């Protein structure tokens, strides 16, 4: 049985990259801040949450709850980490993107 190929959508790629960047500190708010800082694109918590749910369901990441936090109204953080499968999918997505863009230089810029 060949393992099913898992593709990452554009937003999933961003999330995956942010998680890798953040390491142990990856949770909702830090992921959003990372993406917003680096892409300038506003991210809503709801969209991120549902994406994390989906990626977890696909086995690409796992989450665990941290300790309750007063700065969050007593709610714990949902820390996330890519599984081996998730890392593989992220790496594959990155490579695919690079292959597509290679050699184009800046010709597309007007």
């Amino acid at each position, binding site marked *: 049985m060949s393992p099913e190929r898992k593709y990452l959508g554009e937003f999933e790629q961003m999330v995956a990259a942010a998680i890798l960047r953040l390491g142990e500190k990856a949770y909702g708010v830090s992921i959003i801040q990372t993406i917003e800082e680096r892409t300038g694109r506003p991210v809503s918590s709801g969209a991120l949450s549902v994406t*994390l749910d989906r990626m977890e369901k696909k086995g690409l990441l796992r989450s665990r709850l941290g300790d309750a936090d007063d700065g969050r109204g007593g709610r714990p953080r949902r820390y996330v980490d890519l599984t081996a499968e998730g890392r593989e999918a992220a790496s594959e997505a990155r490579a695919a993107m690079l292959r597509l863009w290679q050699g184009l230089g800046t010709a597309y810029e007007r």
Partner: protein
Amino acid sequence: MPDFVVALLETMVADPVSRAGLIGDLEERYRLTAPAGRIRASAWLLGELFVIAYHYGFGRRMGMDTLRRDLSFAFRGLIARPGFSALVITTLALGIGANAAIFSVVSTLMVEPLPFEDADRLVIINEIEPSGFTASVAFPNYRDWRERNETFERFSIFLPSSRRFTTVDGARVLEVGWVMGGFFETLGVDPEVGRYFSEGESEPGAERLAVVSHRLWVDEWGADPSVIGSALTLNDEAFTIVGVTPSDFVLYDETDVYLPLGVVADGLPWDDRQTSVGAEIVARLAAGVPVERARADLQAIGAAVEAETGEEVDAANVTGLRAWFLGDTGYQSMMLMAAVSLLLLVACANVANLLFIASERRGGEMALRTALGASRGRIYRQLLTESMVLAVLGGIAGVALAVVGLNALLVLVADVLPPGFAGRIGMDAPVLLFAAALSLGTAVLAGFLPALRSARAELAQRIRSAAPGSVGHARGRHVLVATEMALSMVLLVGAGLLISTLARLQAVDKGFDGTGVLTFRVQTPGDTRETWMGFHETLRDELNALPGVTSVATSNHFPLAGNSWEMLYKDEGTPPGEEGESVLLTMVSASFFDTYDVAIAEGRGFLPSDRWGTEPVAIVDETLAAARWPGQSAIGKRVTFEQPMGPDGERADLWRTVVGVAAHVRHYELASPSRIEVYTPIGQSAAWGFTSYYSVKASVDPSSLVPAVRRVVARLDPSAPLYRIRAMEDIIADELGPQRAMRELLSAMAVLTLLLGSVGIYSVVSHGTALRRKELGLRIALGGAPSEIVALVLRDSMLPIGMGVVAGVVGAIALGRALRSVLYEVGPTDPVVLGSAAVILVTVGTVSAWLPARRAAHVDPQRVLREE
């Protein structure tokens, strides 16, 4: 983050890890956004909520899937019973629509902020005489109150008047407000353009500056801002326009132009406490001072001044701006709100009734579902969902109805509302919220009781006894019918009281007859007494010559004109040193008594020969004659109420001989007698040059005379504008405006309530007969005559109708008491009104019960018995 948002989020996300993470994230980010301001943070949160709702959907956790199922089930059920659904929705729409429409008026009147800075601190002050009549403010009182008070931040005075305004197109009269003491500063609103003149610029010796009203600015100069700095010529004096009031400057709505009182200060009685010329005080309370304390403060000042000077100081009548604007309208609108809520209660009772019946008819279905394992909670919920769907649909239809109804309502009450308010009434957010709350409340109220009953365990046995419903429930339905009847009775009586009041007011002996009289006012300068008198004599003659005109009168005011001349009266019986009594002075041409058909009870009317230089004469009214000379003739008595300036410059009492006694005329309002009245011949009056009031009685439609009247006046003096042209019958009709509006509204509510009540009785009785079909069929089979069957059914419904009438009488008496301020010579226990209402109610109730009863009497017994 607000708690309810957290609670909402809790219902949206099912997975506990995702939920904790998401809510925590939002809380963290909300706190980061908070410094940007509440509005920004809330907007951000709202955006997030939409995204979450989009991704996760509402109610995943709280069994909302069942809600969705219940909803579609409810809709299917309602579509399957279109007649029932339409009836319930229409009933609710009537109740909610009527309430929303009235509420939109009431909320605007009572809650909407007035367009002035801190309007709650603004008050209007006039005086109350010991006799109880209100009067305008005497200047010395204004000065003393202003200088000595410790409860006001600002204290300004407003004196209404009128002036001729001459343009290239001719002359017209402008309503002028002379102001002093910081009128504009007191109100605290910015001008539309330009500036206001300041407190300092309104003192004696003031420059001739003018602030024009928004209306005049638009009408006269097409809202051209460059009008600032140009001249406005009033009575041949040029005033410089410095500013324009904003469009919502609703205080003294009729005023066209505001001028500094200092300009005319010389001619005013600054030191005469007994004379007032129409001024009112516009003041701003100091922060935190209640009206009562301010009133007590002015009262104490008055007492101190009386002690110091020995002069009488009238009590200060301090009225908050909103109360001043509303007058009785505020109370009346609250009454209407109370009345219309009765209509809603009847609608609720009706819907509860219909749901009751529906649930009984569906007893079998519910029992089956219970037997198949549906929990009691499920059944509750489904029934409540149904009534909720009905209420929401009823609410939507109600709002649509309210929009239509509000337009009709505004037409009806437009003339009764204070100026500036009508334009602000509409279906705004508070009204829609109110309607939504009503719909939900109705759903719970009307839906809960039947739901409770239907879900009872006893239902299980209904499967066995295939007949739905039971006689025991009849009692509950009868209570509802009795309630509906009682509430209908209350509204019927309310409408009846107003109908009776209006009829009495229309028939009241007002002392004069305004039928066919056209009124208007003329201002003409007249250089001397002779030219002024001459002008009016000629004008009367010319108007008299117009076709259709039967009589023309000139006077210094006329009944219900909204203003009056009052003087202090003395006669030979008045003890020396006494100040005298305030009386209404009406200066009239000889034709006045004919024009208004005022009866001369004794002596004679005036003659054209009663003119300046002949023996001074007066006519007094019956009230005066009866009070001063009981049992004697008033003719030949000597009276005085004028102190004209003599040739030596001294003022002296002018004594007149009474030549006639006239009927009392209701000058201020139709509902109550006015002050004592005295009349003098205008040709013999000490005063002249005032605005003259004309009354032209004609045998033709008064309004058809207007063009001819204008031509006559223009020919005599093109610079003498006539204004406020109105038929006296219209003036009288306006007086009755509040009563008329109340009568129309209460009658409409009573009819609607009665209609709903009769639907209620009809449905209850027809349901009852349906339940008893078998029994009735058996009776018919055994030889019961149709009339006996009808009587049997009717007897059952008579009890709740009777109980309703009795309970209604009690409620109606309470309503009648609350309505007292608009009632006239009719009490809440008026037997004719109570009796008529009871008769109407019992008749409508009986007919509503008779229709289904008759049908029941004609069932085919064979078919009914075979149905088993």
